[in-house]
């Protein structure tokens, strides 16, 4: 019964096959046994196999990159978390007051929203690529190649020193990604006021009115101390910002590489499925041909 069905199938296929021009041409050259068109007997699995190979190697690469990011993240995360202790006392003393009105802003890293008179100092390439589009007139400094050595305070403080010497400001706002977890980081603005502004605010009795209750010891005046403090605060805030940002970057890279290697895995599964299916189909077709041929000889 099954044989009969197969035979009928085979017969039904013959007229479909013969009009094929390639088969017709081939049939005139080739011997009689190979009159089957190319596509039916041997479906080419070459392309799928190549694709699978490349997806597999991409997956290997992304996995390796994920590992690298994870190990870098671990090193830098502890550093970043330790460095938070550097700016917290400053926030307790001087406060982080983004609401204080100032005229000249200097911003670091990327930021949005036009301010009164904003100048940008950019660390790294990413923010540069963005800011160069709409506000390249306002860029003052651009610092790159930070991460050649592992990040350390000396380097960041030298950078902070450069910025302080080159940029006039009433307030420095450091914009960076604060590391929360591997997949979450908050865009953060830290404000460092210039000593003059701090003093003015202090006298006006605004948000920094408490500062008057501190006693100044030693032979320095209050404004001198405030200037030293502001400079040191800026370098500390910068140090923390740079670390947090590097940490966020590694975290983002790690999660991106993780999802891309998972994606490659899924893709590989799909490709394997279709590869096996095609192979199976060609085997089945061959079997059908052989059996139907044999039974045609019998009958």
């Amino acid at each position, binding site marked *: 019964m099954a044989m009969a069905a197969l035979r009928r199938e085979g017969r039904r296929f013959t007229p479909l096959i013969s009009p094929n021009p390639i088969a017709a041409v081939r049939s005139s050259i080739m011997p009689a046994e190979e009159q089957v068109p190319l596509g039916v007997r041997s479906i080419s699995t070459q392309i799928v196999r190549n694709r699978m190979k490349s997806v597999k190697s991409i997956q290997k690469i992304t996995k390796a990159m994920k590992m690298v990011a994870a190990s870098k993240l671990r090193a830098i995360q502890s550093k970043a978390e330790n460095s938070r202790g550097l700016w917290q006392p400053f926030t307790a003393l001087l406060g982080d007051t983004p609401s204080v009105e100032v005229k000249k802003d200097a911003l670091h890293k990327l930021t949005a929203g036009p301010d009164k008179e904003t100048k940008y100092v950019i660390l790294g390439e990413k923010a540069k690529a963005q800011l160069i589009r709409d506000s390249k007139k306002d860029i003052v400094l*651009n*610092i*790159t*190649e930070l991460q050649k050595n592992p990040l350390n*305070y000396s380097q960041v403080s*030298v950078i902070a*020193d*450069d910025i302080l010497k080159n940029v006039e400001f009433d307030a420095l706002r450091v914009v960076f990604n604060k590391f929360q977890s591997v997949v979450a980081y908050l865009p953060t603005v830290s404000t460092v006021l210039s000593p003059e502004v701090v003093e003015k605010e202090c006298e006006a009795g605004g948000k920094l009115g408490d500062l008057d209750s501190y006693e100044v010891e030693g032979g320095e*005046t209050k404004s001198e101390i405030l200037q030293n403090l502001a400079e040191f605060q800026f370098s500390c805030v910068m140090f923390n910002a740079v670390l947090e940002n590097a940490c966020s970057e590694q975290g983002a890279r790690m999660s991106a590489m993780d999802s891309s290697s998972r994606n490659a895995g899924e893709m590989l599964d799909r490709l394997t499925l279709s590869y096996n299916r095609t192979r199976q189909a060609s085997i089945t077709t061959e079997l059908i041909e052989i059996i139907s041929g044999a039974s045609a000889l019998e009958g």
Partner: protein
Amino acid sequence: MASNAAVPFWRAAGMTYITYSNICASMVRNCLKEPYKTEAISREKVHFSVSKWADGKPERPTVRTDQPE
């Protein structure tokens, strides 16, 4: 009060507090004994390149580094 009015010597030399404290820090690092000394000194490597911008165009970057190329 006369000494109060005078600027600290390092500020008179054109340094900021950061530079001053960095110099002090490297002094302290140099006072350490081995093997802590090399470890601490490895933490004061500086390498970056700065380029100033004028009229929306970057000028030639200057590399600041303390290591031989």
